[in-house]
């Protein structure tokens, strides 16, 4: 009996001693990341403007104001490559343009004539690019529905996963490294996000660990 118990106890102690520093380092890292997020949020929440949080760890994009969540959009699939990022503040510096409709000098009493003069949520694109400060390029794609479109999307995601490292290596060689992110969202969520994330909006970027 002793022959079995002693090695088991020894193994347990050994595992405990080796795992414990790793766990505490992990905890400390979590605390540090949380600290960075909170510090960034404290600055943004002190202003009257809304701000976004792109949380790639939790796979969630949210819009907040004064620390209150106004909107949450779950990310269906994501990828991130390129220059390493730290948790911290950012802002939307670029967004694919959308032509605004010209207001005709007409009569708003007739709703049918209004349709092509309005810019509504349904008119927002579901596929677009966003640029965040610090050379972070985001490609937003709508989640495909149906068997074949879904497979095509998976293939294009894999193509992206295969090609992107090469692009990154080339950028590293040219000493001009950027970060590329793709987000696949439900189509209506992608449109909501386009509506919400306008140029100049400040936010917080939380990369995965």
């Amino acid at each position, binding site marked *: 009996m002793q022959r079995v118990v002693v090695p088991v106890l020894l193994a347990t102690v050994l595992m405990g001693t080796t795992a414990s520093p790793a766990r505490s380092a992990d905890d400390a890292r979590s605390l540090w990341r949380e600290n960075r997020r909170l510090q960034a949020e404290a600055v943004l929440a002190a202003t009257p403007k*809304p701000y976004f949080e792109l949380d790639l760890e939790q796979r969630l994009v949210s819009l907040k104001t004064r620390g209150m969540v106004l909107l949450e959009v779950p990310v269906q699939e994501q990828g991130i490559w390129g220059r*390493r990022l730290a948790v911290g503040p950012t802002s939307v510096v670029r967004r694919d343009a959308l032509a605004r409709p010209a207001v005709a000098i007409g009569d708003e009493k007739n709703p049918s004539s209004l349709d092509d003069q309005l810019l509504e949520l349904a008119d927002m694109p579901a596929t677009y690019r966003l640029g965040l400060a610090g050379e972070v390029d985001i490609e937003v794609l709508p989640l495909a529905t149906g068997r074949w479109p879904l497979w095509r999307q998976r293939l294009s995601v894999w193509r992206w996963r295969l090609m992107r490292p090469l692009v990154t290596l080339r950028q590293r060689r040219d000493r001009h490294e950027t970060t590329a992110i793709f987000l696949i969202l439900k189509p209506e969520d992608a449109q909501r996000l386009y509506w919400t994330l306008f140029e100049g909006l400040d936010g917080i970027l939380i*990369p995965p660990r």
Partner: protein
Amino acid sequence: MATVSAPDLPPSSGPLPVAPRATAWVVARTALIVFLVLLGLALAGFTALLGAGYYLSRSTSGPAPAAFENPDSLRAENLKIGKKIEKLRPKGLFLVVDTGKNRLTVHDGGRVVREVVVSCGSGGVLEDPKGGRSWVFDTPRGERQIKSKVKHPTWIKPDWAFIEEGEAIPKNSNDRAEEGVMGDYALGIGNGYFLHGTLYTRLLGRNVTHGCVRIGDADLEYLYKNVPLGTKVYLF
């Protein structure tokens, strides 16, 4: 000298029957080996490239600073900042306007007490045909507050309203006043923007306004009676 005459040859003369099969087998085997080697090399190269690319270019969070050394102080600081943010969070009665979904929600004590269908800015651009002026009809986003409450408001039409209707801009300010188009009540949120009523209730839920938030009669009355001056309005 021995000679073989033609009649001594076997009936089907020519190369031995085993030779072509052996040659074909050697060729096939070599081709298969070459193919497998090439496939192996391609797979190895592909895997190496993928692996190298993955580890070299995967973007994650950056390096941790020396702050790691004292997790207890970090924990305390996080708690402190968290409380600071908590204090900023809206409390009591406030309004939230979702300009995309055209919904206004009344929050009180941490819960939604009323949801209202509204109309927000159309996002359209009006160009002044006579001058270089232009207007973008967006509902402003951000934090505002109820600055004024008016019963039976009169709309003082701005220049764009005349341009949009193809009319000349009046010189006399009295000619700008128009009664009845803003409904029974108006709640001002600053910079000329109001939460007000509408004649076109069938358009509620759509983005049709010039930037103001249009509300149906019953909901507008509720807001007028229940939302005091100074109430925060969060538009997104």
